[in-house]
């Protein structure tokens, strides 16, 4: 997959990206279990205990306790994690959309626009993972702390290839500067490993990256 490396390098990079996504899924599951076995159980116990206590109170005080119970329940409900992208039963489009929504938009970029042309020859799970990981790694390397203003992720899959195009733009300036040069140097190194073709915008600080994943015939439609 790499431009300067070997096919073996590409397989290693793909495998590492797959493992990175699997690790994210595992961490998410661990967090969910921790929440269930800890705070959610405890909060449920508190809410049920409050209900028991308020039965002996005058009506006005009991009504206030009910309000507290409702606020506590609603606040805790916000802690519930969304459905994980790679949940069994999710199709490739759902996996990719959820992955980009949960793990890219608001995390690695302020606004994310997507164009997914993947329904005719849907990518396999491993290919979805590689696409998602590529987007995450490039955005993370582009700026480890701040988020770019906008990114467009376009994915197209055919029987022969899965193609990813990523375009990233910043709000902080229109002309390339020293920071932009540093960013591009870091990005080039990661892009080489990922097999991405990096294209800096000559006029602005924006950049684009493109990846084409060759597919084995059996992968198309899987």
């Amino acid at each position, binding site marked *: 997959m790499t431009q300067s490396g070997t096919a073996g390098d590409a397989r290693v990079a793909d495998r590492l990206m797959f493992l990175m996504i699997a690790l994210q899924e595992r961490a998410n*599951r661990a967090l*969910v*279990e921790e929440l*269930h076995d800890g705070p959610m159980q405890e909060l449920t116990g508190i809410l*049920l205990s409050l209900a*028991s206590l308020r039965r002996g109170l005058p009506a006005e005080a009991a009504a206030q306790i009910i309000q507290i119970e409702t606020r506590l329940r609603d606040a*805790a*409900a916000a802690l519930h*994690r969304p459905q994980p992208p790679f*949940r069994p039963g999710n199709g490739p489009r759902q996996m990719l959309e959820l992955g980009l929504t949960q793990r890219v938009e608001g995390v690695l970029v302020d606004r994310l626009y997507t164009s997914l042309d993947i329904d005719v020859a849907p990518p396999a799970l491993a290919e979805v993972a590689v696409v998602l990981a590529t987007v995450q790694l490039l955005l993370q390397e582009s700026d480890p702390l701040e988020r770019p203003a906008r990114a467009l992720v376009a994915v197209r899959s055919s029987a022969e290839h899965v193609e990813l195009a990523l375009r990233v733009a910043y709000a902080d300036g229109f002309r390339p500067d020293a920071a932009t040069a540093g960013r591009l140097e870091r990005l080039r190194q990661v892009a080489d490993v990922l097999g991405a073709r990096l294209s800096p915008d000559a006029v602005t600080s924006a950049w684009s990256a493109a990846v084409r994943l060759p597919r084995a015939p059996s992968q198309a439609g899987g």
Partner: protein
Amino acid sequence: MRTHGRPRALVVDDQEMIRLLAARVLCDGGWSVETAGGVAEALALRPLGFDALVIDTRLGAERGTELLAALRLDDPLVPRRCLILSGASTDPAPDDVAVLLKPFRADDLLDAVNRLSGRPTVDDDPPGGGRQRRTG
């Protein structure tokens, strides 16, 4: 199934605190309640004889959905009498079973269980913090 005119509910949760508090809420709401801490204990209580089954999704190493699957073999309509308690919206649950997300208020629990048996509820609106499904 009823005991002294009260409908019967079985609460299955491995956490003793939740099990006892939930049982108290249901008792105060007019139910006759028995409790179990796991699948085997629940099965020993002949769960198909209850009007409502309140089952936590996670019962230590076991899953509440395993208990539901076992009961479904003997009574395909048993999901209509089941309420799954879940600590996470990501927990898998069959589509034909009502689910109540933790944390929930006592009234949320009582309402959800009353709905299983068609009894009047405290509030006709579904609780805001819970997820109510009933398709079966």
